[in-house]
């Protein structure tokens, strides 16, 4: 395998970087957050025009057939700029569910997502925080001509803003059965859907959503036997989230080593104190580890060889290494690092959020150990 970026990927990454450097500096982002807007429609439109929103989708559904490595190439700068736009939720999660469906309704919806006209929200998490979709228990009961949804979904990114909810639900069995999972397209304005909106610590809009006897016609079921679709979609989203985290880690490493070289205490830049310089070295080691793991796993995925253990290694490592880098960055910045006014803490909160989504490092490390101990038995 070759792990170097192709020229196309370099160009793609450069163009995203240029866009964000121009229009998404930290102060601009903070103003947007304070304005209460969930994200910037201008940036979203710019990404649509650059083809980034269609990047992960096959050409036959209106996408650009990008590989995982292409998505990673754009997700790293997304992380480095702390994007709050719903790329992972609307494109990689909800969008990919739509893209993997052969339902005409899903296809039609996806084309609006790719153009940026509308967004969709992946309405899946039930508070377990695991990567395994078998934990879904929200009930989809068959009723005349369709299904009735009842139950609760939590931490739905972009849930209050989405034009469509892509909801995972269980038509039979109980968690953690792999069988009996389906995906539904639900209009959030439908009767019985209650949405409690909030902002996450990393500035994204999210929602807890309750379904109370929500009627869904059969043609809005866009997938049945959906466990493996969900697993694929989530695995790819995990890689993209990890790429965001690695982008954030790179930013923290750069900002912190620069800060340490200018901030003076006791008459000398603090980088000259060995404890600080060794902490910077540890940050760099952690970053090199994180990025190696990301790029390797990405290539593995593009080669069709990434198994559950590989994804768990990636997610576990990024969560743990990211926390180390973030905490080291704050400590090195001292009081300034504790303020909302500089980007350091925001990067750390982005990393913490990514760690908690789809299973934290503890979960994934243990999953790795469990599979090793079991395979060897």
């Amino acid at each position: 395998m070759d792990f170097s970026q192709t020229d196309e990927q370099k160009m793609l990454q450069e163009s995203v970087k240029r866009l964000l450097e121009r229009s998404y500096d930290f102060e601009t982002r903070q103003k947007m957050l304070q304005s209460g807007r969930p994200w910037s429609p201008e940036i979203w439109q710019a990404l649509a025009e650059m083809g980034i929103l269609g990047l992960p989708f096959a050409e036959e559904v209106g996408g650009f057939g990008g590989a995982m490595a292409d998505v990673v190439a754009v997700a790293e700068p997304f992380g480095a700029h702390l994007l709050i736009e719903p790329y992972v939720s609307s494109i990689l999660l909800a969008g990919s569910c739509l893209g993997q469906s052969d339902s005409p309704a899903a296809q039609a919806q996806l084309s609006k997502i790719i153009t940026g006209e509308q967004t969709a929200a992946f309405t899946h998490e039930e508070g377990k925080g695991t990567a395994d979709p078998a934990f879904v228990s929200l009930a989809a009961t068959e009723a005349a001509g369709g299904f009735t949804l009842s139950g609760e979904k939590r931490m739905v990114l972009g849930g209050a803003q989405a034009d469509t909810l892509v909801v995972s639900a269980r038509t039979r069995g109980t968690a953690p059965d792999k069988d009996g999972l389906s995906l539904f397209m639900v209009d959030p304005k439908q009767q019985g859907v209650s949405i409690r909106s909030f902002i996450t610590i990393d500035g994204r809009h999210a929602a807890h959503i309750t379904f109370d006897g929500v009627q869904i016609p059969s043609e809005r079921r866009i997938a049945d036997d959906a466990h493996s679709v969900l697993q694929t979609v989530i695995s790819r989203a995990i890689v993209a989230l990890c790429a965001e985290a690695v982008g954030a880690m790179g930013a923290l490493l750069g900002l912190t080593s620069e800060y340490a070289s200018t901030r003076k205490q006791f008459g000398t830049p603090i980088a000259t104190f060995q404890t600080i310089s060794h902490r910077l070295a540890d940050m760099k080691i952690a970053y090199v580890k994180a990025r190696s793991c990301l790029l390797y796993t990405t290539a593995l995925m593009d080669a069709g060889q990434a198994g559950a253990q590989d994804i768990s290694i990636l997610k576990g490592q990024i969560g743990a290494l990211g926390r180390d880098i973030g905490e080291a960055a704050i400590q090195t910045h001292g009081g300034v690092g504790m303020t909302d006014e500089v980007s350091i803490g925001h990067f750390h909160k982005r990393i913490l959020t990514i760690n908690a989504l789809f299973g934290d490092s503890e979960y994934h490390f243990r999953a790795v150990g469990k599979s090793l101990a079991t395979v060897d038995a």
Partner: protein
Amino acid sequence: MTTQTKEELDAFREEVAAYLDTAPTDAIREAGRKTTSAFAPFEQGAAWQAILNEKGWAAPDWPEEYGGTGWSAEQRTIFEEEYRKRDLPPLLPNSLKMVGPLLIDLGTEEQKAKYLPRILSGEDYWTQGYSEPNSGSDLASLKCSAVADGDDYIINGSKIWTTFAHKSNRMFMLVRTSSEGKKQQGITFLLLDRTDFPGMDIRPIKGLDGHAEFCEVFFDNVRVPQSGRVGAENEGWSVAKHLLKHERNGSANSPVLVRYLKRITEAAQDETSPFGGKLCDDPVFQRDLGALYADVATLAQFEWLIMSGQEMVNDPALPSIAKTMNSELIQRVSVMMTRVSGLEGLSMQLDALAVGSGVDPMGSELDLISMPFYLNSRATTIYAGTNEVQRDLIARSLPIA
């Protein structure tokens, strides 16, 4: 050590328990449960202090003549234990643990008479003006200047990380009155009667947790009376060092941590493990909890030894060791908290956290405080002398060949 019998101590415990069960208002209790920092919510903390002061219990470790309780070490511990059990808000330390004890030791009679009663009652809140934007770990390099002018000083410069300055009505601060000699020389310790002197400007700074707990304070030709000086001019460094002893040797820190671990354990009884069963029954949770609890227990053991006057109390590195242990344990406890809350810790819930807001939290009570507590506690290894500086000091206490 003590002359009290077990029966007397048991009776004392009952008295304390009965009082703490009835005296605090609902808002004070709510503030206690929602405390996510070493600093409790300001208003309810002050209200609680006023109530305690009426009972005469605002400052158990002060000398009795100045309003202390005259309790034995055992009684103080009993009080602390019962206090923690009820998740009551900690009293703000600046006045009670810092300025008060300092004035008792070094203040003039006039200063004592003027300030101590209002410190006890909580009517006065003293913010600390030490750090400056370019003088953090290297505090002695501070530049904020005070130039004598008649009976006054004229102050110019700025102070930062002044906790609750925007809620304070008094300030104690270090200023530079001379640039001669070593940088530790030429520093003077001042008490400011007001925080709204003409030319003073206070800017709250929002922290990672979304709360404005600390501020920057700007001084533009601020005229203050020299009578606010503690100790001699240019000898403020030794005054500050004296104060530090009170700050660091204050009271036991372990009970708070034990209580947080208890709240974590309770919350784990309602959480399911992604590997099946309840989180509290999960062996990994148990191991990590046990390792952390053991280290917190050791902090408690250490604090008991110090309180009892064991020989190690004479080690000059002791305050630095205590600060390092405590701050790093707070952080580890806070990480454990966020682990238990997981995803539910990701939502910003500033509204639900506000005392009296009536907004329901979105997850459990622990979920509400986990992330703010974690984020806020990143500061514990930075403030009051970074842990890097503490380790420098500890290393200096070691034998050399």
